[in-house]
């Protein structure tokens, strides 16, 4: 039987690096949107417990043993890299709907503050924080980990997001070279 080859949203693109600043694609195995059904918050909390996670406050995410839960909207979160089965929430497979980009290195916040109208300085947007915000003209989910920014954009627009971040990186790098 023939086998269908899977491709990541940004397949064929190599990481972009300017000194210690680098942009790369993160291949996420699985994204599931989790939205608790009416009155099911407690049942959902119970279902999340084995993962060591709890449903989140807005603009934050939590990670445990490689499994991440990120707030993405009203009564809605994305569960990344884990399987959850529960009748307590509407679960929708979003694994293929989003591309994940990672930007790391000194100046990453400067780069992103050319595209996001957000205050991303570390004292304001600290590790563990997330935002559902526009990346230039695109919908996105932005997260700050201890070492990097990771952001989700629509799969179809991933190449535009990549190009725009890469361009901002070039500008920041050219400024630093002065």
């Amino acid at each position, binding site marked *: *039987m*023939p*086998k*269908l*080859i*899977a*491709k*990541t*949203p940004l397949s064929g693109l190599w990481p972009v690096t300017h000194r210690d600043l680098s942009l790369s694609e993160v291949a996420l195995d699985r994204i599931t*949107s989790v*939205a608790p*059904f*009416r009155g099911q918050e407690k049942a959902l909390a119970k279902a999340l417990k084995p993962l060591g996670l709890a449903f989140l406050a807005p603009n934050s995410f939590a990670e445990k043993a490689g499994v991440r839960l990120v707030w993405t909207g*009203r*009564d*809605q979160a994305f569960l990344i890299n884990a399987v959850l089965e529960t009748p307590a*929430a*509407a679960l*929708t*497979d*979003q*694994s*293929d*709907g*989003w591309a994940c980009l990672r930007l790391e290195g000194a100046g990453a916040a*400067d780069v992103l*503050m*050319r595209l*996001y*109208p*957000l*205050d991303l*300085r570390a004292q*304001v947007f600290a590790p563990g924080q997330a935002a559902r915000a526009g990346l*230039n*003209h*695109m919908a996105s989910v932005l997260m700050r980990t201890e070492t990097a920014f990771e952001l989700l954009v*629509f*799969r*179809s*627009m991933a*190449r*535009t*997001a990549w190009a*725009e971040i890469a*361009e*901002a990186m*070039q*500008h920041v*790098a*050219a*400024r630093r*070279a*002065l």
Partner: protein
Amino acid sequence: MRIAGKGLTDPSVPVGFRFDGRDYVGQAGDTLASALLANGVKLVGRSFKYHRPRGVLTAGSEEPNALVEVLEEGGQRTPNVRATVQELYPGLAARSQNRFPTLGFDLLALNDLAAPLLGAGFYYKTFMWPRHFWEGLYEPLIRRAAGLGSLSRQHDAAAYEKAYAFCDLLVIGAGPAGLVAALEAGRAGADVILADEDARMGGRLLSETLVLEGRPGMEWVTSVLAELESLPNVRLMPRTTVTGAYDHGTYGALERVGLHLAPRPYLPRECFWRIVAKQAILAAGALERPVAFENNDRPGIMLASAVRSYLNRYGVAPGRRVTVFTNNEEARRTARDLMAAGVPVAAIIDARPHASAVEDCPVYTGATVINTRGRKGLSHITVRHGGGEALIETDCLAISGGWNPTLHLTCHRNGRPLWNEALAAFVPAPGAVPGLEPAGAAAGIMSTAACLASGQRAARGALEALGRKPAAIRLPAAEDAPYVIQALWQVPHAPGLWRRAWLDFANDVTVKDVKLAAQENFVSVEHMKRYTTQGMAPDQGKNSNVAALAVLADATGRSVAETGVTTFRPPYTPVSIAAMGAGGRGTGFAPQRFLTSHTASVERGAPMIEAGLWYRAGYFPRPGEADWRTACDREVRMVRERAGVCDVSTLGKIDIQGADAGRFLDFVYANTFSTLPVGRVRYGLMLRDDGHVMDDGTAARLADGHFVMTTTTAAAGQVMRHLDFVQQAFCADWDLRLMSVTEAWAQFAVAGPRARALLASVLDAPPDLPFMGCAPVLVHGVKGRLFRISFSGEEGYEIAVPARYGEALFRDLLARAEVLGGGPYGMEALNVLRIEKGFLTHAELHGRTTAFDLGLGRMISAGKDCIGKAASQRPGLTGPEREQLVGLRPQTEAPLTAGAHLFVPGEEVGRAQDQGYTTSVCYSPTLGSWLALGFLKNGRARQGEVIRVVDHLRAVDVLCEVCDPVFYDREGEKLRA
């Protein structure tokens, strides 16, 4: 002329540059203006209207005269660059503008001779007849004669950027007040941004010989800047002009990132910042203003403060024998500084009768300059004093009419400044912009010591608002001389046709023009401005506003305070569109959405059509096919006879879950979905709340409380937004969850008589679905979904797999389809197939059509309520007066066009006789005829009639038979096969 040992430029770093084709050498730290002056170049431009020779007037961003074009490689150029702002860099090439053929010999200087004819309002009065000559003849001529720099007519492909910044305190201006404010707040731990439009911070301290704490002012500036740089919470932004004050503490600012350097790859020329500040301090200083007297616009006449700047900051003497004309004490520093540097000063002409006459040069008190000589460079001035008139030989006249606080930003939210009689200037109104506190000269505080104290006071106010303790820095001792001024706006001159005293150098507006405006009853300052164009040049009246309205006040017998001031609006200085639109050129204008089949389609030579943000294949040309129609006709026949594959992933897909999912669909769709069995799909019609059709689509029931809705491509975003709104506004307590899954699935239409055979070869089990059925399937072992729906009229399926497998499945389907005599089809064929079948798109669902118009009135279920139902029953939305969907078939082979209008044959063709219009047309290879869908008044009752289709724009006039909109397989036998 450079003076050894003076200035902050670096003589050890010579910088070569070109101006008007000649090579010169300046020094590192020079502006183009200071370098030209150092090389003895006084004539740098021609005036806007009269083409008068002009030289450098100022040393700052308010420069009205010295506008040049900076030339770049490849014929690119930037016009209207202020030579006083443009920093020198090796290889800088610039040229003068608005002259022909050369700066020295300008033919249009004839305008100056015609000056008596060219006063304010001249064009409006003169070029009245014949009326239609204005656009074709007069305006182009006038535009050519008057003007600024010229555009390269090339795209500006250089890099620009936009960026955001946030801070506790934004300090605008890095003079004494701004530096103190930044230091006070910086030491207190606040996040501070200090922005200054100059390349070098320090403000007037760079240009004066002031002493702070017993040391040269520059030493204090250097030490403060060093400390600010060392503070991690302070960000210095030189070359950054804060151009606008907006709501909620947001400021626009333009940074010159690379304009002071030879172009280098990826370095932005400019950056447009949006700075959000909890508090802000406006320490932008003040602008010196000229005095209007006859022929006050000659090269060599400069502001006194500019003369000091060139002398003290750039080490350049702007003349060999300088005179000073002032109405205030401070400008006398100019003469003292010049003499101390060894530059002869011919005289000080002080308009104040009781001013001191004790200087090391001749002083005329109670005197005025009444005229000047020297066409391309000042040679003499005529002075009137108590004892008569004197002719003084001088090549540089430094003038000062006092200072205007730079309060523009305080007016950006509609604040009006207040007149201060003692300063003879407007000062900012308190609280004009919430959170923005003026300090120093911008607040009308003129001595250095008072400016320092004012900066500290403003910073403490901001710190208190931020809930921080003051740092209590110690202020340096500084001069605290009172500001002594006697208002002087104009020196009257004798009447005479060619006698003029300039107010607005940039737009060639004279005292005479303002008086004429008053005489012709343009007495409001706003009317005067527009009648004379005073203040409408790139400098926006920075040099002329207050003087012009003072002249107007005088001419109308009012006080300056009564006359008021025109409105200052953003931007403070010009902002290039390229910076504000950074990143938006070409494909940067909007995100590009690519399908998983994109690469495979492009490899097959398919031209991509933009559909919203998506890129979709138009058609798949084969060798030998001459045009798109040939390819399209083949693809249509292929689908009708064999099998075709088309990427339809752009359709909106919405996952709907919850116990109330069916109930919700009943509410948002006109027809009923709660009764749909699991495993079935239903066509649905969605109304807006005004009763018109919003969108059509399908919903499939995957499980009891689980549907997946499909929308059109065009309305995918709109429908998602609508559903979110309905849920939150009307169904907040329902058990319901919505989620867009458009991006998650790659979905392909497989249609045609051999579609089933094609699908059987990729599915793990042969498809066995009734028409409008759906089922989970395994596609080469991958979990997918299969829907039996058709947008072509053939037996049709849509097969969906997770998007990561989209490209692989598309390639696999094409290869298999080709074995069966089929292949891919694009948007063109998709459109033809659906028109043949009478299926709708947003060409028909264009927002003004109702379900009744579309022949779908019966889809609005009688047994339940839905959004838009009540409104759809309003009078006028149903009935024979409505334009109703019909099909149109021409009686000849003539082509049809969409957007053509319908008329009754034999009747007049006019707006009043309009019977309807066409929305979609195609050539149908299946039926061998052109076909159209359109809307015709009472159309359903008029089938069989002949109607005239007229397209006035494209010269189409065809008789068509009105018929059913379904041209092909009306009974739907093929669909259900």
